[in-house]
């Protein structure tokens, strides 16, 4: 959806920010979730809206999303194309600014951050994995992995050692000198995962990581993600069409027409798989 639209920032953006400021004041401090869940909220979206102006026609990509995501959680976001999944991702990943509403990452309002603080956030606290990998074409696998470290001010020698160990985790240690063009899609995505983990982020945002891959490689990628979640306690938010995701995630979230249709725990969903099937074309 987002790719189809040439975004034009609307004048409502400023108004939105002002409106949001009042929301922040009235917003209560994060409370433990009902049901005795004591985990911390790491991402909180409040009344998130995003619209694009296209030839004077306003398209609403998000129509007010409220969600809380907890530390160490593996959450899958599902929904048909054009449902606003990617837009939602860009908002909570601090990659784009909402038209109105607020995003808190660990109780910090993203809208209040300066460009330098945003860079810090993207560099060390959030890892991004894209459907089309987005590796830097002119860099080798190792250089791709160490670039975020360079931005974080890690010395070249240390970056090299850390980069090699990350490549080892994704099973590409032997191919560190290959450029993206010399690697298969699965290998590229594994490099992208290693890169996203470069500075030990707390959050991993994956936008359809397996969509361009065949079944087997998709399974490999998911296994790696699962391991990162289990072993390192990384919060993973993963947009997907992939059914296999159901087996490994803690919670599922459905987005339709820019709104959250439903959020459910995995054990609640298992029996309804047939119904989900219908939604995916």
């Amino acid at each position: 959806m987002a790719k189809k639209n040439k975004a034009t920032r609307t004048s409502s953006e400023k108004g939105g920010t002002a409106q949001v400021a009042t929301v922040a004041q009235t917003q209560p401090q994060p409370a433990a979730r009902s049901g005795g869940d004591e985990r911390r909220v790491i991402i909180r979206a409040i009344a998130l809206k995003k619209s694009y102006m296209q030839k004077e026609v306003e398209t609403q990509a998000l129509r007010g999303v409220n969600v809380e995501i907890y530390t160490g959680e593996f959450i899958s976001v599902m929904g048909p194309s054009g449902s606003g999944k990617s837009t939602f991702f860009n908002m909570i990943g601090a990659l784009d600014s909402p038209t109105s509403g607020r995003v808190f990452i660990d109780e910090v309002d993203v809208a209040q951050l300066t460009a330098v603080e945003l860079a810090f956030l993207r560099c060390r606290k959030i890892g991004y994995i894209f459907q089309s990998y987005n590796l830097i074409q002119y860099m080798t696998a190792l250089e791709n992995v160490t670039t975020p470290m360079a931005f974080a001010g890690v010395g070249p020698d240390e970056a090299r050692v850390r980069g090699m160990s990350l490549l080892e985790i994704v099973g590409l240690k032997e191919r560190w000198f290959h450029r993206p063009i010399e690697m298969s899609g699965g290998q590229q995505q594994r490099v992208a995962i290693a890169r996203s983990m470069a500075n030990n982020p707390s959050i991993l945002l994956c936008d359809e990581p397996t969509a361009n891959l065949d079944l087997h490689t998709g399974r490999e990628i998911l296994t790696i993600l699962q391991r990162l979640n289990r072993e390192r306690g990384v919060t993973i938010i993963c947009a997907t069409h992939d059914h296999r995701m159901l087996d490994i995630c803690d919670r599922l979230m459905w987005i339709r027409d820019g709104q959250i249709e439903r959020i459910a725990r995995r054990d609640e969903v298992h029996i309804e798989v047939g119904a989900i099937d219908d939604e995916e074309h």
Partner: protein
Amino acid sequence: MKVIDIQQQPTMGFSRTLSITIIGIRYRLFRSLVTVVVIAVAVAFLMNIVGESLIRKSVLENSADRLRELRHAAVWAARLSVPGTAEDIILNLGKAEPDSPLYQESQVLAGFDPGEMQAVHEQVCRAAEYLTFFGELDYGRRRRMVAGAEGSDIFRSLRETGRMERFEDALAGMKSVRFPGTIEQFRDFVGQWPEIEGRVQRIREGRRQAIRQVREVLDGRPVVDALTDATGQFGQAVRAAGFRLGEDEAGAVAREARRMVDVRILEDSVNKPAIRKALSSRLDVLPADVTVQTLWDFVGSRENAEWYLAKMREGELDTAGLTVERTVELAGVDAEFASLVRAEHLGGDLSGGFLGVGERMTWLMLVSMLVCVVGIANAMLMSVTERFREIATLKCLGALDGSIMLMFVLEAALLGVVGGVMGAVGGVLIALGRMIGSFGSLMFGATPAGDLTAAAIAATVVGVVLAAVAAVYPSFKAARLAPMEAMRIE
């Protein structure tokens, strides 16, 4: 405890930025080469124009000096033979500074006191300006202004009744004509003309007297022959007659007069039937085709000169002590003279404009600058816009806006250095090649190496700065966008 503690992102070090940039340039070698070539071509164009102008200017300055030297004796021979017309006196004296020999000479020959001479000089300068103005007018316009009058007759004719009014009407009707000074000044000038003409005639009369005096000393000898003795008795006589012949000048004049005499001996000899026939059979051309130029081309080598002098002696011609070396030398000077005259013609307009390279060249330079700017800006704009996705990705990885801009500006500057140096060197080489084509051997010794080096450095800097500046704007725009917005633009 907070999981996320947000701080300020540090700025990436310069060397890391540079190494990332270089990796990028190496990977996109072909793309980078295209950009380099664009920059090189633009800089070469600029450099070529500047280089050619500099070389041309320097060669022409050199050759103008040398020509003046070679014509020295001829100028003096003319000065000692004819007093010149009133117009000649006005135009020459109009160009002369008050401390020049010509000014002082005129004062002495006409017998003016210094104050009077100053007044005369002012009037003559005025007159020279007006003469130049009328001289440069086309015939139709001049006819409408002053009927058929020419030269200094114009001033006389304008004093007749009704003529001045007619002139003013005609001038008012010609908007594009720029008249020197005001009409009132000109009217005054025309009013004073008889007086001015009288003074000019006095200078002319003084010259005639002096020439008569010199002629008595000559006693029938040709002036040029006598001028070979410019440093000796004849020089004294010339000075005694009132001409200003300096000591240094006398030496040069004597040398050149000597050459002219020798040249005349050789050139006269070609007209002797026996010599002409011998030369024509030796060169296998018709006797009628043997010209003075044939002779000079022929005696350029020692062997030929020897043969020719032998033929002259055979024909019982006076070789007047001409040696083989002298003959070869004269042939060399003749060739040099020919190329100097050719260079003088090639000079065209060599006044005004930037760096004194002439108005036309200045325009060409401005246009080439424009081509340079457009070419480089376009190349950089393209290479930045086609990498929006990369910029967005780098931002996702935590790159600061400044680091991204630095990467692009560095890349542009590096390409600019390579392209600039290539272009500057190429431009100079092309300029040298072309100038050797037009000026030939005159180029050697007259090439302004220092100026060319300075211009090459300046052109390189222009290339680097333009490339960097052209990269600043698009990369600034791209770097400031939110990452996803940058990705969407693609």
